């Protein structure tokens, strides 16, 4: 690797995942200083209630700063313990026993133990819970405290990914009996305790002096997150040195950022993907030949070039991306082929097809433009797409899951099962194509409880193929996470790619130069 500086690599936009494979040694990180980041995705309704978290600001402040979860997805995608040290499953993956870390205290001095785990998870499991993570933990039928530092979960059906699910950013650990207070004031076991929190404005945290993570994480003395929803303002603040890092850069401003010697751009390809789901229970999308015609009628590379300005990769109608363990990278790529699209249309007994595509930039930035590109590329195949521009307000309630063909997006999930059971399992609320495939369903259940890695891989590969050939969701592109940092900041060589800002854990993993 000699001759390539780390910064040079980042500047040329090489995915951090590649660096991980090269085995470069971790750079020593020094403690101290104040780190300030400007993030989008904050608003006045923010709170320390993990059940409501959905965007990078609160997730970075809570999961990445003030609170901890039981497990943690490391930057390289592997699973490690956070408040749990180890775990063990019964052979059918139905009963899971977690050993908890000893000697951990909350910011108010209370010791952490099994009761805290059970009571915190109860927030999501409880009947009628409004938690966004409710479907994740719905399978838990029993939570039992074995000792003060050991908890046993019994699941409805076996799930080999259960420890992964517990790393979810909603599932924060609160002190038992004081949850209300902890949510009001932000009392967790995390590396930083709350100094100031003004919803939709800012969060300031101070490093806990004596933390169980010791010197391995949490390198700043003080951290501040500033809510900057306006793209240009965020870039300006970074360029003028007021802040040290920003999320989601505006691609049009990229040359300006690159021209500034004090700023570098960080880019990772993860699982975030943009989609066009069609309701497969509705004509004409109930005919698999129509779906195939649509799959060959979209010019994916063109969309990556024009909508993402190259910051992404083409999709293959499977939601499993490079940040997943069982990503089928060798699967044959769906190419743009109007003749083949026409052929499939004829198979469906049609000469031409007239359909409406509902899109709004609420789905993803550039969705309306992408729909228009789709319109242009599908026309030669005899598919006439009528693009309907929908209002951004109420898009997720009035258009998505309602209109037969619409635009959407997914941030992706760190495990295959999690992704599939969110959006492709028969009958789940977010199955946005109303897709129902018996073989897929069968594989989903068997792979979920499968503890053997090779068998599991085989099953997940087959599922990705079924989705590509039969699925009702067009996934033309995977969008990179693109963020920028100032030269004051040192990041590890491998930066997480399952979410923005090092999997929302920059406060924990980054340091000052």
């Amino acid at each position, binding site marked *: 690797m000699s001759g390539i500086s780390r910064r040079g690599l980042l500047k040329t936009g090489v995915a951090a995942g590649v660096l991980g494979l090269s085995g470069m040694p971790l750079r020593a990180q020094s403690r101290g200083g104040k780190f300030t980041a400007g993030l989008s995705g904050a608003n006045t309704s923010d709170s320390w209630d993990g059940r*409501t978290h959905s965007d990078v600001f609160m997730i970075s402040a809570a999961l990445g700063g003030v609170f901890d979860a039981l497990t943690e997805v490391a930057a390289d995608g592997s699973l490690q313990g956070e408040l749990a040290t180890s775990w063990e499953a019964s052979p059918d993956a139905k009963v899971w026993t977690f050993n908890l870390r000893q000697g951990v205290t909350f910011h108010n001095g209370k010791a952490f133990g099994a009761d805290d785990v059970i009571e915190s998870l109860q927030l999501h499991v409880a009947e009628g819970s409004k938690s966004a993570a409710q479907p994740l933990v719905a399978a838990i039928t029993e939570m039992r405290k074995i000792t003060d530092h050991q908890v046993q979960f019994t699941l409805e059906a076996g799930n080999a990914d259960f420890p992964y699910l517990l790393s979810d950013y909603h599932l924060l650990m609160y002190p038992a009996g004081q949850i*209300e207070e902890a949510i009001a004031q932000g009392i967790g076991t995390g590396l930083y305790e709350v100094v100031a929190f003004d919803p939709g404005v800012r969060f300031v945290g101070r490093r806990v002096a004596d933390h169980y993570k010791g010197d391995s994480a949490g390198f700043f003395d003080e951290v501040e997150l500033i809510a900057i929803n306006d793209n240009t303002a965020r870039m300006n603040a970074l360029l003028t040195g007021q802040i040290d890092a920003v999320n989601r850069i505006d691609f049009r401003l990229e040359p300006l950022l690159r021209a500034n010697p004090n700023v570098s751009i960080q880019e990772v390809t993860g699982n975030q993907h943009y989609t066009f789901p069609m309701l497969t229970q509705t004509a004409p999308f109930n005919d698999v030949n129509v779906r195939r015609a649509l799959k060959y009628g979209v010019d994916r590379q063109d969309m990556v070039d024009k909508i993402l300005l190259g910051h992404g990769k083409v999709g293959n109608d499977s939601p499993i991306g490079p940040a997943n363990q069982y990503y089928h990278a060798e699967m044959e790529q769906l190419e743009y082929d109007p003749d083949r699209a026409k052929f499939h249309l004829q198979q469906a007994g049609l000469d031409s097809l007239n359909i409406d595509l509902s899109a709004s930039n609420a789905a993803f930035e550039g969705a309306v433009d992408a729909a228009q590109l789709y319109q242009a590329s599908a026309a030669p195949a005899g598919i006439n797409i009528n693009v309907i521009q929908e209002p951004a307000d109420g898009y997720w309630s009035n258009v998505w899951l309602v209109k037969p063909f619409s635009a959407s997006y997914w941030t992706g999930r760190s495990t295959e099962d999690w992704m599939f059971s969110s959006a492709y399992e028969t009958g789940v609320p977010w199955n946005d194509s109303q897709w129902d495939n018996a073989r897929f369903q069968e594989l989903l259940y068997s792979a979920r409880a499968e503890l053997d890695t090779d068998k599991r891989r085989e099953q997940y590969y087959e599922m990705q193929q079924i989705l590509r050939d039969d699925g009702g969701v067009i996934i033309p592109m995977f969008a990179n996470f693109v963020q920028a940092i100032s030269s004051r900041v040192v990041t590890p060589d491998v930066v997480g790619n399952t979410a923005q800002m090092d999997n929302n854990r920059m406060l924990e993993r980054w340091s000052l130069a």
Partner: protein
Amino acid sequence: MGNVLTIILQRLALGFLTLLVVSGVIFVAVNLLPGDFAQSILGQGATPEAVASIRRDLGLDQPMVSRYFTWLGGALQGDFGSSFAQASFANFTGSESGAGSVAQQIAPRFANTMFLAAVSAAIAVPFAIVLGVLAALYRNSIFDRATNIFTLSSISSPEFFLAYVLILFLAVLNPILPAVSNIFADMSFSERLEKTLLPALTLTLVVTAHMMRMTRAAIINLLSSPYIEMARLKGMSPLRVIVRHALPNALAPIINVVAINLAYLITGVVVVEVVFVYPGIGQLFVDSVKFRDIPVVQACCLIFAAAYILLNLTADIMSILSNPRLRHPK
């Protein structure tokens, strides 16, 4: 003087009526927008059950008319309710203790906006009037034309554009002022002032033209009056003629324009606050509209409307007081 008092009382009563109408209009308008609070806050995760459960908790399943009168009943007693966002979280934790009232939520934001308006006014009003007087004094000169072109082009540009131009020249190219105005409660006054300066300058550019042009026009209008000619014939200097003789008589229209612009400084800050990330009422307003948080939207709108009504009233009173003929009616 009793005359003035009657006017004030009359106008206050009318103002109250206006606020009532405004609240009704806003309520209907926000309800006409697609989507409601439950759908907006849940976003992509809006399952029918979760939407129904939040609606039930917040009373959004009640008919619109009855919701309006429930709100109005509270508002008349000085209780503007709880913001939906906060109330919804209180329900999450199963208690009412965490619920902040709208008043509590708005107060610090409103104070910030008033601070920005005060700083802007302190710069803009003297600046505009001095410019106007000078433009009247040197009318049709190069200076007059340059001033007109400058102020008119700044009022004609969208606010965000002015903001970005100022950021470019004063923050990026010449790092004099911070590009982001993230002020907070326990900040020292000087630091707060420094962070507020860029948005204040932007607002100054927006409101100057109106006030400056009115000052200039009002003074020039008077310059053809016989008493001004008399003053000139006495041999007074042009500056003295304008400042001593013309300006006092031009005050009424100038005060009116200043008042309208002050109201604008309070109500028109939405875009500027968003661009500079200034935590004022404008940002709160944008957030609340986005989430259809009706109690907060209502309260913000009432504050905006009240600012207009009160400042207009002040303007009228001031013009009466500045005019001896109106002050002492026959």
